[in-house]
Structure formats: C-alpha cells, structure tokens
C-alpha cells in the first residue's frame, strides 16, 4: 500500500500525464530531494525555487493567469503566513474581475503537529484557510483520499489548498490506488529514490488510473447511532480508533465523519448524521478560538437546535502561541485520545 507521500507523488505523476499539469515547484521540491517529505520526488515537471514563499505563491498565480496548471508547495504551513494577502488575492481575483480571470492553481503544504516539530513545524492552517474566500480547502486522512482529492484539486478551475497532515505522510492506507502494484516493496523499488547518488535515477511509474473525490464531499468512516464525531486529517485516524474502542469495550456506537473538504464542506452529511444521533463532537488541531469547528457548531445550533440531545462540543488546539517541543507541552496543546474519549462519554451521558 502506498503511503501518503507516495500517493501524492502518484497523483502528480498522473496529472502530468493526463491533466496538463505543467509545473510542480517549491523549496527543495525538485531533484535531488523531491520535497522534505519526498512527495514530489522523481516528477518530470518539479523544480526548486528560491527560498521565497511570496514568490512561490505569486508565481503560481501568474502561471494560472496564463492558463497553465501548476502545483506550488509551501514547505511547511508554518511559513505560509507571510503569503496570506497573496492567498487573499488569489481567492478574490475571480470575484474582483467579475468572473473574468479564473486561477486554477493548487497550493499544497504540510500541516499539524505529531512529529515533535516544536513551535515552527507544528502549526495548523485549516481554520485560517476557511477564512480565505474563493479557495477550496481540502485535507485528506488516507493515501487514497490524498490521491483522489489532489486530482480534483488540480482539475478544479478555482484555487485549491491541499493540506497534508505531516504526521500521516509515512502512514499507509488499506485501499490500493487504481493501478498501484499490490506489493508495497515493488512500489518502493519503482518510485522511491535510492539513498546516495540519484543523478541517474528515474522512477518507473506504475500505470495509475484516475480516481476522483469530489471536493465538498465527506465520508462516513464509522457508522453509528449515539453520537456524531466530525474530524479531518490526522485526528480522523484517532477518531476511528476511538470509535472502534468504544464500540468494543463500552458498547457505544459512534458515527465518524471524515470531512475531507474544509470548504466547501459537506453540510448534508453532517446534518443528516446529527439529526439521527442528536449529539456532536468536532475534533481538530487548529487553535480553539474562532476555530472552523465553531462555524459548524453554529450551523448545527441554528438548523438542528430542537433535535439536539446534548450541547455540541469542540475539542481543538489550546489557544496558546505555539506548540512546545517537550512531549508534555505538545500533548497538553493538541487534542489527545483520552480527552476525546472522555468528552464522548460526557456528551452521551448528558440528558436534555
């Protein structure tokens, strides 16, 4: 099974061949490294840029304006903040020009904690991104979803932000990408660059096929009756684990929704699930004040108030300036399994 870095690579390769993807660029995105997480290794169109995030986003905007498809990478989302006004412009160009200039560009960037990355390799960007109008924002939790969402992102006529949970880059899924060799070792031998001299290395790409995940569509990863647990990215995998454990040990039935798209988001899926369970917990690791989950809860309260059996809750990153390096600090800042589990139990016990 491909890990997420390999899945992204395969999607970019597919897009070079089939979606007129012309440029994949960013800091260390080209040879020899192919990106700090190797997600752009071995590609035909990848190249190294100057160490200049604003230049990277501007370049992508211009390429898109000229009508070509590109994927630009910001090495860590911790370093995307000095481009926010450019992201604003990319998102408002269609609107400001009254529909005249589309900017079909994809920006991808690793997000979140979970690798002991300390203050500047642990930031999240999903809630920030939800405030940049005109962008679609996606965040996969499995390699297959990463593949399918990236294809959709590249094909989309709008700017799309593709958030890569960095702690999941080496995690394998349990579904094959269409055309992916079933043997993990074979895939590795064919598309992972060798250690050492790579100057003569070329990947032997498997014939991967198209696989589309519509942007704006979530996925129910665990069916359940008593509570709806909405998450995305790294915490989605945690949510699945928790649902399985609660089912096995406590006989509690949790419905887990992988939102996958932050914006536009799958309201119908959330709505019908919460209408059924009457209980909602949202989990993500961006900071908790004006967190995107608050918007979802606002909407749940507005549209499903009389169907709720308990107060909806959000567990998100603590509202502190950074994520400290020592595990005590990181674990106290980022939502942990135990606190999610106990919140579920509390919500389930709550009586209207």
């Amino acid at each position: 099974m491909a890990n997420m870095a390999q899945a992204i690579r395969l999607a970019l390769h597919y897009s070079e061949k089939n979606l007129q993807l012309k440029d994949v660029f960013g800091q260390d995105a080209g040879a020899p490294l192919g990106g700090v997480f190797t997600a752009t290794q071995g590609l035909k169109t990848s190249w190294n840029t100057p160490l200049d995030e604003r230049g990277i986003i501007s370049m992508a905007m211009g390429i898109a304006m000229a009508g070509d498809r590109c994927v630009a990478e910001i090495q860590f989302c911790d370093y995307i903040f000095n481009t926010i006004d450019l992201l604003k412009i990319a998102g408002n160009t269609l609107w400001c020009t009254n529909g005249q200039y589309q900017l079909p560009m994809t920006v991808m960037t690793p997000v979140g904690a979970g690798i002991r990355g300390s203050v500047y390799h642990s930031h999240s960007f999903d809630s920030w991104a939800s405030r940049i109008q005109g962008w679609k924002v996606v965040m996969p939790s499995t390699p297959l979803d990463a593949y399918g969402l990236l294809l959709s992102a590249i094909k989309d006529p709008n700017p799309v932000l593709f958030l890569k949970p960095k702690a999941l880059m080496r995690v394998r899924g349990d579904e094959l990408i269409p055309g992916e060799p079933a043997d993990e070792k074979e895939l590795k031998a064919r598309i992972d660059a060798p250690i050492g001299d790579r100057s003569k290395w070329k990947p032997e790409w498997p014939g991967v096929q198209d696989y589309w995940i519509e942007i704006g569509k979530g996925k129910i990863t665990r069916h359940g009756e008593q509570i709806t647990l909405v998450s995305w990215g790294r915490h989605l995998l945690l949510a699945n684990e928790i649902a399985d454990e609660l089912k096995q040990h406590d006989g509690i039935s949790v419905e887990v929704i992988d939102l996958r798209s932050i914006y536009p988001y799958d309201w119908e899926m959330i709505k019908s699930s919460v209408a059924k369970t009457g209980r909602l917990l949202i989990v993500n690791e961006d900071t908790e004040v004006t967190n995107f989950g608050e918007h979802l809860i606002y909407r749940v309260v507005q549209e499903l108030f009389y169907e709720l059996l308990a107060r909806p809750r959000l567990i998100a990153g603590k509202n502190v300036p950074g994520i400290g390096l020592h595990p005590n600090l990181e674990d106290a800042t980022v939502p942990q399994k135990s606190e999610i589990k106990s919140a579920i139990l509390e919500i389930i016990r709550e009586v209207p």
Partner: protein
Amino acid sequence: MSYSKSMSAKSDGKKKGLVKIANKKQVQTKSKDTAKSDSLAQIPDKTLIQILDLMIKSRVLEERLIKIYRAGESYFWIGGPGEEAWGVPIGMLARKGEGPKYDFLHLHYRCTPTLIAMGMDMKDSIRLMMNRVTDPSTGGRNFSNHYCFPKMNIAPVTSPIEVQYGIALGTAHAQKRLGDNAISIVTGGDAGTAEGDFASCLIWASRKGNELPMLITVQNNYWGISTSYEGQHGESAIADRARGFNIRARVVNGNDPVESYIALKEEMDYIRRTGKPSFIESKVSRLYGHSSASGANFVGNEEDCIKSFSEKLISRKLVTEKDIKRMWETYEAEALKATEDARAEGVPAAESIWDHVYANNENSDWRKF
C-alpha cells in the same frame, strides 16, 4: 517635486542610461541618440502626433474622472495624470492580444495612458469610475483605474502595492515555456519598491539559466502618498537594484515621450530577442496628488509632459496650436458624452455579491451547501 527637480531627474536619467548598463557597447550608442533633443527624428512624424493625441485623450479622461468625483458621482479617484509620456508608449508598443502568445501587462493604478493607447474605450473607464454594472473590468466592484481586460492580457489591477511584480513572474514563465517571444510587462511606483515583492521579482526573473522575459519598470514620481522619496532610499537609483542581479537596467526621463518610446522599444526588442529581463526606471510627475483623498488638485510645480511635448511638436511645426486645441475639444466632448451614457446605465444588484465567488457560481453561499 519641483519643476527644477524634474529637470534634474531628466539629466540624471541621461547620465544613468549612459553609464551603468550591463550590455554597455550596444546600448551606449543607442542611449546617446535617445538622449539627444533631436531624438524626435527617430520616430515618424505620424507616430509623434499619435503619441500626443493619445496623451491628451488620456489626460482628458483622467480630468473627467476627477470631475465625476467632485460632482459626487463616485466615491474615490486615483489615476495617472502626469504619467502619460511614459504610459502611452507602453500601450503602443505592447503586443496586444489574449493568452501567453501575447504580452501580459501587470499594471498599477496609474496606467490609464497605457490602456488608452491600447484602445480602451473612454466609457469603460468611466463605467469603472461610476461603478456601473456595465463596467467591464470589475462590474462595479472596484476603484477607478483598477482595470482588467483579459482580451488584451491586462491582468487585474489590485490595491495591495507591489503584488503584481510577483504575479508577473508566472505569466513570464508560461510565455517562456511557449516560446513565442511574448513578454510580461510590470509597472508600479517608487515607494512600493520597498516591498519584498519587488525583490522577489528581481530574484526570480534573473536566475541563471532560467531568466524570464520581463520588462520590469518603476514609475518614480518621487512620492508615496505624502512621503517623499528623499529619506526613504539609500540606493542612488532604483535601477541600481536591478543591476545587482545582472538585469540590464536604465533610467529614463518619463516626462519625455520620445525618450520613453525609444527606450521601451529597445528594451522590448532586447527581451524578445534574448528571453532575458530588462529594467527601466522612469522619472515622472504626479500632477493631481496621490488621489481624491488628498483633494486631487492640480499641483502646478511639476513638469507637465503634455505641455512640454505640445510645445516641442509646435516648434517642430508638426502640429499647430489649433490642432492641439481641437484634440482637447474632441476628447472633452467624447468624455462628456460617455459620462452621460454611463450615468444612465444600471448599477450592480445587491444579490450579485454571490456571483463569481467560485467558477461557474457553484458553492458561493454556504447557507445553500
């Protein structure tokens, strides 16, 4: 900036053009010619008259926009009166069309002269000024002079200073890939060169082996709103910064349309021929202050390029005072008529805020997801 300062800017421009150019030999002879006062001889009479005509047309339009503001028929004016001698030649020389086969223009809010020279209808500028629904650039959404015409590769003018310098890299990159010798032209003010995007532009345009076909320009009017150029710059000329990246660079007197025209043509030819970037700093006047926020009054102590060029062409007997008067009157009548027409046109509807949030109007309102 005083009149004498603008004159010294002119001689400075000549000097810089002669001295510090990467490709010294070839340009030296050319700049020597361009610096001479008889440089008029290098441009056909018909073209000279056309330049003056377009400069006047652009000025009349800008003055009309200011009147529309004064009459309370618009909320804000910003524009380019005083920068015609520089802007008109850009519009005349650009390869006009849509897509990367043609030149892209990444302009700022002082580029009406360029648009007029490219054939923009006055009425379309007035529609933008009066935020009519018929405004082809923004549909009544943005300020005056924030043009956007994809048919002529006029990239959207945006308010955040200097961002166009980065975006232009991308269109130049796509043009280079295509290999049709089209170029990306970027303009902006002097104060804005302090932004990081200006440095980004120089860095990305000049990477060895990956040079981009770009004409990078700065319209130095010596002002950033109320802040004078003096006191904000340590470099001798803004163009020196480009030289640091081995980008061929020169300074021109942007109040002289002939010097501007010749320099622009030379640099555009060079970029098309070599695929490499070139830089021009153009010294210009700012005749009505920064914007309507500072009153948009005629300043009187800076060189008026239309006045000086008119005198030049009269003394050359290429036009008479009467010809020039007729140009002004014709365009004034056209601008007035266009204003009356635009006034009668519709305005954007409230519910149209949801249009074009995304392509094909999908997903615009989250309440409807």
